[in-house]
């Protein structure tokens, strides 16, 4: 019996240590998982640490994450402190020197592009603020194309044999983005605007010049008060727009505002489904564009 147990253990060990792909890549969010697939195609299959319905800022470190990071060659994070509550702990617990920040195995998407909301006051009276910049870069397809190019270079450095595939993948993705952006820009021109729960879609709005009519939470990380909702209703009454919230945000306040303003309420995840690739990511943006464009008066 102990012998059989040992055989199973050794079998599992061999299974675990025989990598099928040239690189073991871990992505924190499905949008980055999609980007890895867009860049690497079939060559790499990323492990994704959180589903699209999850708030990446509220996640907790789990042993399964450490397990995934233990033999990762590269961790792809959104960064800019979005995953600060759990990723540092998970990376430390993974005992993998290759993926420490500062090494080739650590990639932050937000560090590859210019950020919005940079340099606000570091004052927690204003809520859970991040003076380093708004981290939600993954909703801007143009920035994502630039992140894909940087990611391709990083992958090429870690896996030179696949360099051509990665660079080509990034170029194809950039082209696909470019093709869609013109159409999206046309459809979103003159869109009346969006009321968000949190400033989590501003990169998309900023890209297409869609006005942000307000945020339901007046202070990041703090639920809105009745007065906040009243103020918003007074301010926006009679205008056109759409309320968009993420699935993990409290539904009552958005529903009430949508009702009072006579607007549509959309619940859209910030990230595409877990299995999405580059096309899946663009489909995800398409859903957002559709929701925003549908809000014409």
């Amino acid at each position, binding site marked *: 019996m102990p012998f059989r147990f040992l055989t199973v253990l050794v079998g599992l060990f061999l299974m675990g240590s025989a990598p099928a792909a040239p690189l073991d890549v871990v992505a924190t969010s499905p949008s980055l998982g999609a980007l890895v697939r867009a860049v690497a195609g079939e060559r790499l299959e990323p492990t994704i640490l959180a589903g699209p319905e999850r708030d990446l800022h509220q996640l*907790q470190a789990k042993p399964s994450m450490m397990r995934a990071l233990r033999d990762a060659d590269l961790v792809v994070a959104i960064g800019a402190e979005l995953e600060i509550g759990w990723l540092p702990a998970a990376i430390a617990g993974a005992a993998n020197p290759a993926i420490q920040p500062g090494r080739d195995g650590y990639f932050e998407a937000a560090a590859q592009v210019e950020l919005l909301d940079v340099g606000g006051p570091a004052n927690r009276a204003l809520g859970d603020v991040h003076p380093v910049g708004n981290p939600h870069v993954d909703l801007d397809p143009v920035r994502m194309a630039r992140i894909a190019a940087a990611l391709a270079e990083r992958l090429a450095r870690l896996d030179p044999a696949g360099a051509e595939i990665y660079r080509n993948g990034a170029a194809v993705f950039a082209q696909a983005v470019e093709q869609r952006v013109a159409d999206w820009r046309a459809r979103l021109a003159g869109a009346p605007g969006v009321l968000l729960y949190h400033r989590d879609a501003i990169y998309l709005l900023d890209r297409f010049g869609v006005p942000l009519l307000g945020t339901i939470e007046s202070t990041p990380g703090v639920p809105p008060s009745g007065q906040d909702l009243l103020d918003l209703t007074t301010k926006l009454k009679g205008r056109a727009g759409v309320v968009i919230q993420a699935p993990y945000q409290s539904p009552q306040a958005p529903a009430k505002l949508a009702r009072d303003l006579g607007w549509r309420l959309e619940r859209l995840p910030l990230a595409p489904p877990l299995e999405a690739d580059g096309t899946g990511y663009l489909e995800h943006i398409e859903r957002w564009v559709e929701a925003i464009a549908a809000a014409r008066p």
Partner: protein
Amino acid sequence: MRPSILAAGLATALTVPAAAVQASSTAEIAELRSMLEQMRTQYERRIQDLEDRLVQAERRSARAPAPATPAATDPAISQPMRAPSAGASAPAATASRLPDFRGALSSGAAFNPQISVILNGNYYNDGIDGSGAALVGQALQPSGGSAHDHDHDHAQDADHGHSHGGLNNGFNFSEAELSFSATVDPYFDAAAYLAVMDEGDVHLEEAWLQTRALPYGLRVKAGKFLSDFGYANKQHPHAWDFVDQNLAYLNLLGDHGLQDTGVQLTWLPELPVYTLLGVEALQGDQERFGATLSDEDQERLGLDATEDGPRLWTLFAKVAPDLGLDHALQVGVSYARNTQHQEVHTHTHDGEDEIHENALAGEADLWGVDLVYKYDSSGPQGQGDFKFQTEYLRSIKDLDIQSSPHPEIIGSRRTFTTDGFYAQALYGFAPRWTAGVRYDVLGLTNEVSGDAHLDYGSSNRWSLNLTWKLSEFSQLRAQYARNDILVAENERERFDAFYLQFLMSLGSHGAHAF
């Protein structure tokens, strides 16, 4: 315009003496004038030039501590990590291709350690004049028949003079916990945790270094730290889900748990299932499980002097199957061995006033089994989240009687076995609101070898609490506990205890381990 005033001043200063000496020829004066004019324009141009350069430099430094120069040509060459600071991520909009940046964007100030202060205070009330908070840590157990006498009379170490559980009825400030952590260099991370108590005394809770570059899933930690024995042991009080520590830990390990100085080695092998194996060698300065007596007491009672360290060893294993993105389960087994344990048991005889002291010395073992399950719902701000946590501890002390007023028992051996257990569950019933329930017990088993079975029963407690997390940085908690604590063989103290607690987290946004 400052430069022109300067030039005018200069000109006047020069012309006045010139006029004073009554220049003989007007031609000379004209020449002087033109020279001055020339000088003036030159100075103005130079000063203007300097001002422009100053403005440019100011703009550059305000924009970013740009890492551009060394990395611009070849990003593959190792570049110095940019000192992270607020605004560092505002790259020049003109840069068409940014350097590949491998660090983490952070709002932490450049090169300062991450600093946080956690304030932990409460209002406490029990029905027995505030003595309940100390009593829960002094429940009767076979080996520590006079655990509190022992603690008070023979405080082994001034370090342990403070107590996290020492509360009065009314307002209490438990502690301000200061923590500093940073990456030291590519090889080490380090952290220090200081607890400042309400009297102002400072207690070093932890100060350790940990490797970050060892291969094969190995990590070494050294210094003073909370052992990875069990699950609750390495949590600081602010991370507890209840205001106070459970009875098993409080009575078998004391206020600080297994907190000692030494070295830890952990190994995370490359297995399909998360498996962490660890071993620790610790000095053995532990308040209960690792206790030895003071020099005077050792001499007076004829006990051996405290041996050289390390005297306390631990082994632990934690296994966590992958249950998908929303569920997490971890099971752990821990073992600790203390190679030198000393304690004093006191007793009196009917009709005599004299207190008899038996001094015992030997070894002590501690076993622990723990299980934690967490469910992460997608509800807003913790709504629907669930956590279940349970641990079982069993302490076995194998001691010889070294001295006693009763010579016939000297040299005889006593094995004391006590165990403890707790189970707690937390549920996020609304956004930001969590309800918790805990049952903890000490002494399911109480045995002394040689003696008849001890059937005085166990000490136990039920606790209920309600936590309101106003934001990520502050929380308020109300807790009620129904205590049934065994204080002597046939004496129980039954009382209610009520807590209102605040926890404030100032400073950097830390990450909690699982």
